[in-house]
């Protein structure tokens, strides 16, 4: 069984909501990424989404854009991201790792070559932001052939027909983007999110993660009440950026532990999600 499925099964048995942090590989510095991944697991992360930096991240807001630019400026590339995952795997055999990014770097490596190398490195799922259902026909089987779960996005604008088609292709979990806009956009309407998640759950049996707009323990708990997973990206990257000075890793990891630990605690206190709010 793929690590993602196994992890969500365990969480379900424990009636807990998954906490999924997103960090850009190589930010703020390439050598920080692997220790940071372990730090996030220790702070309560259940799945790690690792961003593959790309020069033209059209679905990302300024915070994640800048993180990607800085990572690329320090020589990050897809091969190094895969090497980081392999290094992480040496000490952590169970935490699922999902690569999140854009198609072009994967295409430059070659679809098949990438999938093979990703599996070998210990990657469990791949979310290609700019590959919607329409372009996924060949891509999904390639990923699945190498036991990589194809993770798909759903948006507030996704209608029931698109949700139904996503249910056919998606594996692992689906990522509901709770706001119109790019990553890091503002205000979150939790009632609306709860309604949308309920709608999605009527058609999709996979766990539903919610991202975009989750910044702290309070928003995490609010979303955790209706979702199977909360995904935190921009707020975490901002936290890293605030402690990005060289030789400041101790403070950085402390801040990350505080942010994620607070979310973890808030999620566990609200009793975990049943998911059955419909």
């Amino acid at each position, binding site marked *: 069984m793929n690590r993602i499925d196994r992890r969500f099964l365990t969480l379900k048995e424990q009636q807990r909501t998954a906490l999924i942090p997103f960090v850009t590989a190589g930010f703020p510095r390439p050598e920080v990424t692997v220790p940071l991944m372990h730090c996030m697991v220790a702070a309560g992360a259940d799945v790690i989404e690792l961003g593959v930096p790309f020069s033209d991240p*059209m679905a990302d807001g300024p915070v994640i*854009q800048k993180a990607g630019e800085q990572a690329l400026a320090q020589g990050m590339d897809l091969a190094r991201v895969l090497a980081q995952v392999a290094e992480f795997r040496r000490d952590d055999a169970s935490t699922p790792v999902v690569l999140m990014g854009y198609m072009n770097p994967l295409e430059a490596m070659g679809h098949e070559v990438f999938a093979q190398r990703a599996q070998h490195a210990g990657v469990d799922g791949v979310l290609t932001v*700019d590959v919607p259902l329409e372009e996924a026909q060949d891509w999904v089987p390639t990923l699945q052939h190498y036991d990589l779960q194809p993770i798909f996005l*759903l*948006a507030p604008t996704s209608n029931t027909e*698109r949700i139904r088609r996503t249910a056919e292709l998606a594996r692992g979990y689906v990522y509901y*983007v709770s706001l*119109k806009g790019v990553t890091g956009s503002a205000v979150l309407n939790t009632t609306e999110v709860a309604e949308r998640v309920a709608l999605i759950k009527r058609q999709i049996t996979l766990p539903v993660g919610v991202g975009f707009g989750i910044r702290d323990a309070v928003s995490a708990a609010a979303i955790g009440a209706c979702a199977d997973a909360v995904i935190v990206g921009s707020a975490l990257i901002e936290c890293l950026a605030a402690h990005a000075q060289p030789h400041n890793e101790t403070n950085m990891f402390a801040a990350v532990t505080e942010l994620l630990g607070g979310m973890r605690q808030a999620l566990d206190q609200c009793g975990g999600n049943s998911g059955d709010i419909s």
Partner: protein
Amino acid sequence: MRPMPNGLTSGDNLDFNQFPDLRGHFGPYGGQFVAETLMVAIEELTAAYEHYRDDPEFQAEFRHDLTYFVGRPSPLYHAERWSRQLGGAQMYLKREDLNHTGAHKINNTVGQALLAKRMGKPRIIAETGAGQHGVATATIAARLGLECVVYMGAEDVKRQAPNVYRMKLLGATVVPVESGSKTLKDALNEALRDWVANVDNTFYIIGTVAGPHPYPMMVRDFNSVIGQETREQALALFGRLPDALVACVGGGSNAMGLFHPFLNDHEVALYGVEAGGDGIHTGRHAAPLSAGRPGVLHGNRTYLMETDDGQIIETHSISAGLDYPGVGPEHAWLKDNGRALYVNATDDETLAAFHALTRTEGIIPALETAHALAYAAKLAVTMRPDQTIVVNLSGRGDKDINTVATREGITL
């Protein structure tokens, strides 16, 4: 298969009018590579365009605006003195520079703005590099009373101050884009981000035959008036189709507009001229079809200028309008199937052609256009005087006089 005038072969059985397919694919190229957050907007646009594409009322309004607002048809002009000087084929210039706002760009913005109006979108956004598409968009937005926001790389805002002011005069808001390389590609990223956040009331007018489907098809269709007129004018002027068509290719909208009505006429050779910059061998150019490889950017699969790792690299060209690391997917496909030949002209060759046309014909061409002229001049001398070349004179050069002067050490 039969040999074509450009020496390549191509499948005769291809009907080019059948492309793209329903999802916007030209062979392996094109498609809809955008985030799920945009797909519903793309679906809505695709449905609307499919509807109005064949709607006689919409087409009549489009044609009316092309006639009375843009000033079409544009002449097919015989550059007699230049032809004589070159001593080869007869050069004909399709005078898109005489359109309102001075370039072919207005054809497409008129079409898309009419579509925006029919779709009930009161807000228009656009990306621009040199500012020509931004000006064309601001122009039609002013005429139709639509709110207009133009994204422009911060570097380009500095380099193209007059166009920035023009857009502001027309009532548009110009947003400088500070991310990435601060040029056209980053402006496009930012416009896509705006669209994701404001899909309900916003129509995104893309300025070239790139982006997710239906843009490459739609922008081509709106610009195909160039080729349709050229066809009729050629038959009227010299009684047959031209032997060759030449157009510059950045994103490739003026070339696609000229080429498309001729794609099934295999006896007409097609040449797309990319920006060779300092020369292809230097790596400092903007010629993805000449020196790039296929990848995925801005919603479609096409030839790109990228690193081994698939990161998009900065381009270089004397003309800001060709300074784009990708190219329309239909061009990528025409390259692979051999129907069109893609070549390039360096900055120096371009400048020489800029001066040559200005001095011999009294027409100052845009620097983008001068790339096409540079190659056409080379091609002409390999052909007989009874043969004809049509060059798309896609824009006028007034906007470029500062660039040319600076390059030649002259302070205005």
